[in-house]
């Protein structure tokens, strides 16, 4: 690549025990250099005391997080944190390893001072370099099985990669593949995760093209990685992108047209039949139709003929030795115990519920009964059938006050979770359903896209309509409550505003006397439903 390095580091530069050697690659945010271990000081001994010994060579990823960096980017800190967090929590055979993180302390070089350095397992090259080679690598299917295995390990542990593409698949000295670059990775919260608003156009699923973006970033599901895998598989097996077009923009438009149903998917005739089915099931128009990662892995392994312990075809080894000369002085890294260790290890972890391989969250399966358990207690009588609706509705709102426990407390106080509540006597229209909506008011909040419904909804009002609308309405009202001068818990005030209006609450300077009982009930249930340690 000819683009300038995002972070120039001179050869021979010392960071901790590492001495920088040749540049390896650069991305938009950071640059990666080969480094060799030169120091042997106590720092090393203490640092690595409880970890495995540091290798002789590593890849150092420099991210310009210092304050003297010319282009100061606030979002960079967040990207770095995501990557480090993932490495800390997940160690899996198909994910590149992180040994350490360092911070450059060098006031003499303002461009480097304060930079974060990730010490990563050094790879031999990336899949994008392999793709540039002609003829196409014969090892494609075996590599795909390993990439898929990496995805399965990530998804299983509750993370989404968010930026799967050839440049982020690294090839190790033994020819095996590992996933890298977790800047965009995000941990799942329920059915989706929030990732940074960056993407690589050619690997972005159609539902994320021009998708809405909230303050927390864009919502992404594991199925986004599945789409990217489909694109990557097509590219690796046929040498062309699955969607037609000479430019990324043309392919993006083709993806949009395909998703809208105006165009069909025309995969390359070079694609073998079993792979055609797999790629087709990855590249479905909607995320809901895409194949799950587990099924995908099983089918990919069958198609690759790798079974449960991928063997590497000879062809790749042959190719690789030729590439070694190109990449210069690549030292073998980690005598890779990865092969044959992959899937079986991962399924073992699963059987035990949580364990060594996937430390951290996400190894227990989330069922409806425990959905959102960290924010909404499971033992206080919130009906299981509504948990998902309640938790997701609260997550859709950017205001921190709108929590699952608040929505649940409000529903409890309004209707005692009675979905069939019908009270035609109140006001002119009556109140209906689990959230006691007045139909003409619900009309403004019933649609997820924020547009009022064409007609006033007619009772009965289902929980699926009522609960998300409560989340939207509370979210709308939060900024309208006075910032100062109101007494009481803002969440309870919000519930009071739901019962009356923000104006009434603002004018009363708190909960109006008439609604004290209601507010007390909400406050009681709010406390009851909030897990200990959560505020």
């Amino acid at each position, binding site marked *: 690549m000819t683009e300038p390095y995002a972070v120039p580091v001179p050869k021979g530069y010392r960071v901790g025990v590492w001495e920088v050697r040749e540049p390896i690659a650069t991305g*938009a945010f950071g640059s990666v250099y080969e480094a060799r271990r030169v120091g042997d000081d106590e720092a090393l001994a203490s640092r690595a005391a409880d970890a495995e010994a540091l290798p002789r060579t590593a890849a150092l990823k420099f991210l310009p997080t210092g304050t003297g960096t010319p282009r100061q980017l606030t979002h960079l800190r967040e990207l770095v944190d995501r990557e480090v967090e993932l490495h800390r929590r997940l160690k899996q055979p198909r994910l590149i390893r992180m040994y350490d993180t360092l911070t450059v302390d060098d006031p003499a070089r303002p461009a480097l001072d304060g930079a974060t350095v990730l010490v990563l397992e050094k790879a031999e090259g990336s899949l994008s370099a392999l793709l540039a080679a002609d003829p196409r690598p014969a090892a494609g299917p075996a590599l795909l099985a390993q990439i898929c295995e990496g995805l399965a390990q990530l998804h299983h542990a509750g993370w989404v990669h968010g*930026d799967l593409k050839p440049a982020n698949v690294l090839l190790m000295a033994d020819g095996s593949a590992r996933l890298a670059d977790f800047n965009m990775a995000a941990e799942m919260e329920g059915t989706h995760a929030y990732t940074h608003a960056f993407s690589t156009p050619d690997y972005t699923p159609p539902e994320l093209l021009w*998708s809405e973006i*909230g*303050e927390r970033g864009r919502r992404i599901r594991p199925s986004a990685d599945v789409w990217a895998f489909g694109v990557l598989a097509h590219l690796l097996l046929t040498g062309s992108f699955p969607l037609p077009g000479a430019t990324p923009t043309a392919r*993006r438009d083709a993806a949009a*047209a395909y998703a809208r149903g105006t165009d069909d998917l025309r995969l390359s005739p070079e694609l073998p039949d079993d792979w055609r089915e797999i790629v087709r099931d990855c590249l479905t128009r909607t995320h809901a139709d895409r194949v799950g990662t587990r099924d995908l892995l099983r089918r990919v392994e069958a198609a690759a003929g790798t079974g449960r312990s991928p063997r590497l075809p000879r062809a790749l080894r042959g190719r690789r030795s030729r590439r070694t000369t190109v990449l210069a002085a690549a030292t073998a890294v980690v005598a890779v115990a990865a092969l044959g260790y992959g899937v079986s290890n991962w399924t073992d972890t699963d059987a035990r519920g949580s364990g060594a391989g996937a430390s951290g969250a996400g190894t227990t399966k989330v069922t409806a009964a425990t959905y959102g358990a960290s924010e909404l207690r499971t033992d206080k009588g919130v009906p299981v059938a509504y948990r998902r609706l309640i938790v997701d509705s609260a997550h859709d709102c950017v205001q921190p006050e709108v929590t699952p426990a608040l929505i649940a407390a409000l529903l409890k106080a309004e209707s005692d979770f009675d979905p069939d509540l019908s009270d035609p006597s109140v006001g002119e229209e009556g109140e209906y359903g689990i959230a006691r909506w007045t139909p003409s008011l619900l009309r403004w909040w019933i649609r997820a896209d924020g547009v009022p419904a064409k007609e006033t909804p007619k009772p009965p009002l289902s929980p699926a309509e009522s609960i998300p609308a409560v989340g939207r309405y509370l979210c709308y009202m939060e900024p309208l409550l006075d910032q100062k001068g109101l007494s009481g818990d803002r969440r309870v005030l919000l519930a009071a505003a739901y019962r009356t209006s923000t104006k009434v609450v603002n004018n009363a300077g708190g909960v109006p006397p008439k609604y004290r009982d209601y507010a007390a009930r909400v406050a009681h249930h709010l406390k009851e439903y909030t897990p200990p340690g959560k505020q």
Partner: protein
Amino acid sequence: MYSIIVVPPPTTEDENHRTQIRMAPGERLSFGRSDSGNDLAIAHEGVSRRAGEITAQGAFWILSNLSREQTYVVENPEGAGEHIKVGPGRLDAPVPFEFSRIVLPAAGDLLAIQVWAPRHDYRSADGLDGATTAPAFSVDRTKRYFAVLAALCEPRLRGEPHAALPTVDQVVDRLRPNWPAASRTSVQWNIDYLAVKLRLKPGPEEADTGPRLNGKKESLVSLALRFDLVREDDLVVLTEPVPRRVAR
């Protein structure tokens, strides 16, 4: 997944609330006087029965002039007179502007259809190609919406992370030296447009535009700051005349 928004000429019914028609790539909208056979009927004697067609084409759009003798002018309202002419019978003429106004000459009146193309891409500092991880937003730093966004973000960028956001009137005052025609309406229009451009999760702002604007401004600013759409060195757009060409 729309990429083009058409705002028809105002009618007497929607004084406060103008209809927006959202179009996805490949979708076609025909307009003309006749109620039947047109997706958008324009009730004016001077307009042809079948006047034309707008087709969304990726991030841009194309215009067909189906009238017999009228030339349509497509203006760039921020382009200092920049415009293109689409003669009678011309089919599928591409329009390059992010905002456009199609002016239909109609028996002495000029009717304007607005067309927005909020998905236009602009080169970011990091370049753009299919294999590079790119930010999901691309803003044109020469457009007025960028100046409005910068003015909204200014207090927080100047080092007060919890500073109150400027009111619309304060934004107008801040921008007036470089934009003499700035008004409450035009600034609010730009705020609404930014919400579309940055794909802010829509709130039911149609319900009532007054207080909701606060939430929208707040969301815009936090999004812009979080994703570095406006940085401290961008604040020069508030003091220097807006350059006519992309400078970065």
